[in-house]
């Protein structure tokens, strides 16, 4: 076996190990991103697309950002490309289509996750990404690195999202 072949094998083994680590640490995040950027059973296809995108992008991972930040960047870009491809269908049959919107009066009787999902689905692409990472307890620094927007802008955005949520559901 030549040196180049050996190096290639070591690289493949390293890549596989790193990918396994990414999958193990981020499977919950992957499901949440896929579920909240698709409709119906489409999340399964999106999950597969994100996994494939993570694998093909892994060769370019240089470790400049954390693995979580890098994961979110790849997953969200893939999800938004997927949404754009299917956007007409999504608008007609989105996950919140046909559901009674929660209001300040009835939100307490509902499942907290479904309320947050409804809110997430009502947001534009960028706010949705920000809010998903906020719900995952990422720091402002990590969120701003993942989507590369200014940290001050991000703080304003998160604050407005929280207010928007509270005024819509909690009546605050």
């Amino acid at each position, binding site marked *: 076996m030549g040196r180049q072949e050996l190096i290639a094998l070591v690289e493949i083994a390293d890549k596989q190990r790193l990918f396994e680590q990414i999958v193990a640490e981020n*499977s919950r995040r992957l499901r949440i991103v896929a579920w909240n950027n698709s409709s119906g059973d489409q999340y399964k296809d999106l999950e597969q697309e994100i996994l494939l995108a993570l694998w093909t992008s892994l060769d370019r991972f240089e470790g400049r950002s954390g693995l979580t930040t890098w994961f979110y960047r790849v997953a969200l*870009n893939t999800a938004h490309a997927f949404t754009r491809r299917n956007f007409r269908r999504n608008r007609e049959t989105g996950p919140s289509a046909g559901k009674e919107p929660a209001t300040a009066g009835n939100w307490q009787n509902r499942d907290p996750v479904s309320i947050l999902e409804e809110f997430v689905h009502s947001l534009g692409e960028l706010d949705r990404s920000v809010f998903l990472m906020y719900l995952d307890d990422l720091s402002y620094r990590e969120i701003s690195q993942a989507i590369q927007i200014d940290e001050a802008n991000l703080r304003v955005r998160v604050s407005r999202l929280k207010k928007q949520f509270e005024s819509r559901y909690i009546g605050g």
Partner: protein
Amino acid sequence: MELERLKAAWQEQKFEGYLFEKPPSRITADVRRKAMEMKSRNLAEDVSHVLGSMLIVGMWIFWYDSRQPLMTRAGIILLMAGIALEAIAYIAPRFRYRGERFDLPRNEFLLREKKRIEARIRLVKGSLTWLSVPMLAGCILYAASVVKNMGELLSCVALLAFMWGIAFWVNARRVRKHLAPLLVEINWMLSEADSGLI
């Protein structure tokens, strides 16, 4: 605070399915296999596009005969040049924008997507305007050299114009219904980051 309580519930969600039932090593093996299949599929598509284009140009070379009248030869040469031009214009962006760069920061990713869509729009529009000029001229010259009278030539030109018109309408519809809305959406997404507004 209520949002914090909801956030805690969000973080405790329980999931099931492929990602949570299979070990990461198995998922990695599946993804690796799919990536290899995708690579082979892309390669097969590239080869078939290049070979297909070469085959069509080759067919017309076979048709070419130096003893043919000047107008026939000119028609065939223009047709070959037109087909080659269309093939290059079709294949070039495919290689240039090969693979999506999902690892890029959001705005860079969107700008790349935008360029790719703009290139597709240029190609779709160009393939039936300036890119089609040599092919159409070649068709007309070739037809003019083989028909017996002006009536037949006019019929050929009318048929060509009809076919070109249908193709133009189909392409214009594709741009209007599919590509242009994508471009609008990407531009809107790009401006969304700067606005800071919800």
